[in-house]
C-alpha cells in the first residue's frame, strides 16, 4: 500500500508542476500549486502509517498554511484584476529588463 500511495502522490505532484509551468491563468496556476501541496499531504499521511503521528501532524500544519496562503493569494489576484482587467499572465508584463 505504501508504495502505491507514494507513487500516486508523486504522479499528482508532477501533474501540479506541469500545470504551473504550462498554464497562463493565475487562478489555474494557483490551483496547480494547491494540487502539489495536497500531493505532499498524501505522502505524509502514507508515511505516518510507518513512522507514527508526526506525518499526520505535519498535514494539519500544511493545510492551515495552505488556507492562509489561499486567502492572501486570492486577494493578490483580485488586486491584479483591478489593474489589468485580466488574470492571464500573458497580459501582465509591466516589469521587464
Amino acid at each position, binding site marked *: 500500500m505504501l508504495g502505491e500511495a*507514494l507513487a500516486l502522490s508523486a504522479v499528482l*505532484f508532477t501533474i*501540479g*508542476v506541469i500545470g*504551473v509551468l504550462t498554464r497562463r491563468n*493565475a487562478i489555474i*496556476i*494557483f490551483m496547480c*500549486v494547491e494540487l*502539489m*501541496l495536497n*500531493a*505532499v499531504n498524501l*505522502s*505524509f499521511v502514507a*508515511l505516518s502509517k*510507518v*513512522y507514527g503521528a*508526526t*506525518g499526520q*501532524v*505535519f498535514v494539519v*500544519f*500544511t493545510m492551515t*498554511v495552505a488556507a*492562509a*496562503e489561499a486567502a*492572501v*493569494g486570492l*486577494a*493578490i*489576484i483580485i*488586486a*491584479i484584476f*483591478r*489593474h*489589468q482587467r485580466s488574470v492571464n499572465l500573458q497580459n*501582465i508584463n*509591466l*516589469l*521587464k*529588463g
Partner: protein
Amino acid sequence: MIFDLAHPSQLMQAFGPDLLLMAGAMVLMLWAAWRPESNEHQRAVGMASLVLIAATMALCFWYSMRGLSSTQGIIAVDNFRWAVDIICLLGAAGAIALGMEYNAREHILPAESHVLVLFATSGMMVLAAARDLMIVFLGIELMSVAIYVLAGLNRRSAKSAEGSLKYFLLGAFATGFLLYGIALVYGATGSTSLVEISRRTAGQALLLNPMMLVGTGLLVIGFGFKIAAAPFHMWAPDVYEGAPTPITAFMATAVKAAAFATFLRVWVEAMPGMGAAWLGPIWWLAVAAMFIGNVVALSQRNLKRLLAYSSIAHSGYLLVAVAEGTTRGATAFLFYLVAYTLASFGAFAVVIMVGREGDANNDLVDYEGLWHVRPALALAMGVFMLSLMGFPVFGGVGFFGKWYLLTAAINAPRPLIVLAVVLVMTSVVSAGYYLNVIRLMFMKARPDGAPVPERAGGLTRSVVFIAAAAVLILGIVPGRLINWSRDSVPRTQQMEAAAANAVH
C-alpha cells in the same frame, strides 16, 4: 542555564524573544486597525513597532549573554540563532524606519504595513531557531505570507500588484518543492528533527537511498528559490522593482539572511554526511548565481533592478561559504551577511532619497552629477557601492567580507580553488556596474533640468548615515565582528563533542 524543551514552560522561555515580538505585533495590529487611516496614525504605529523591535533585540542580546543552551528538541538555543535574529531585527528596524517616511510620500496610509514587517520578522526568528523541518516549514511560511502582502502594499501601483503576484505564485511553487523535499527526507529517515536525521544518515547506506537523494535535491531547489540563487532567481528582479523600496531592502537583506541561515543550519546539522555528495550541485549553484547575477547586472538601467541582480550575485558568494561547510566557512558566512546587509540597506535607502513620488527617478540617469547637487548622498552611495564590490579601505567592511570568504574557500579541507577564482573573476565583472554608478555620480555634469532630490526626512537620513558609518568603522576595526561571527557559528554534535574533548 539549560532549557529542557520537553517542558512546556521551559520551551516557552526558550522561545522568549520570538513570543515577545509575536505578542507585541498582535497588539499593534489591533491598534493599527482601531483608528481610521491617516499619516499620523501610520507614523505612531511605526514608532511603536520600532520600540518593540528594540525591546526584542535587547532580549536577544540578554539571552545571548547568558550563555544559554537547551536539550535536544524542536528549536535551537545557541548563538547562531541570536546572531541571525539580530541581523533580521536590524533589517526590520531599517525597513520600518524607511517605510514611515516612504509611505507618507507615496500615500500608502494603512498602518498595518509596519505590523506586517513585524510578522515577517517573527517568521524569520522562528526560522533562525528551527531545529526541526516542521518548524522550518512554518517559519518560512510565516515569513513568506507576510512578504507576499508587503510586496503588493502599494495598491495604486500596477507594478506593485504585478510584483506581488509573481512573488506569490513562484513562492508558493517553491514551497511545494520544499514541502515535498521534507516529506521525502522524512520518508527516508523517519524523522523531521535535524539531529535525528543526521544520526540516522550517519551510516552511508541511507545517503545513497534514492528517496533521500531526491528529497535533498527538492530541499535545495526550495531553498534556492527563497534565497534567489540562479537558476531559481527569475522572480527576484521583477519583485524587487515592483515592491515599495523599503520592502525591497527588507527582502534583499533580512529575508535572504533568514532563508540562508536556515539553509546553512539544515546543511550543517542535518546533513553533515551529505555535504560531500552534494558539493557538486551547490558548487554549480554558486557559480551560476555569481555569473548570471554579475553579468546581467551590467545591462540594467534601473537601479532597483541592478541591486536585485547584485543581490543574486551575493547569494552566489554566500553559497561559496555554504559549499565550504566548516566552522571557518560559517564564520565567513555570518561576517559577510552583516557586511552585505549594511551596504545593501544603505544603497536602497539612497535609492529612496533620490527617488520621487510615484516610485519615479530610479534609473541610472537620475544619478548623473549627483555629487554636484547632493554631495553627502553621493559619497554615501559611493561607500555602499564600493562595499558591495569589496573594495579595500573605502569599501569598508565589504572588503573583509570577501577576504574571509576567499580564505575560507582556499583553506577548506577540500580546497575550493576554482570557486575562489570564479568569485574573484565575477567580482571584477561587478566593478563594471558598481563603478559605473560612481562614475555617473561624480564625473558627469548634472543634466539641465534634472530635479534636485528633495531633502528626505530624519529617519531616512539617519538610516543612510548609520549604515555608511557602520560600513566604514567595521572596515577599520573588523576584529570584534569577526570574533562575534566565530562565536556564533552553528555547531553539530560532532563539533560539540570535539570541543568538549579539547577542553578535557
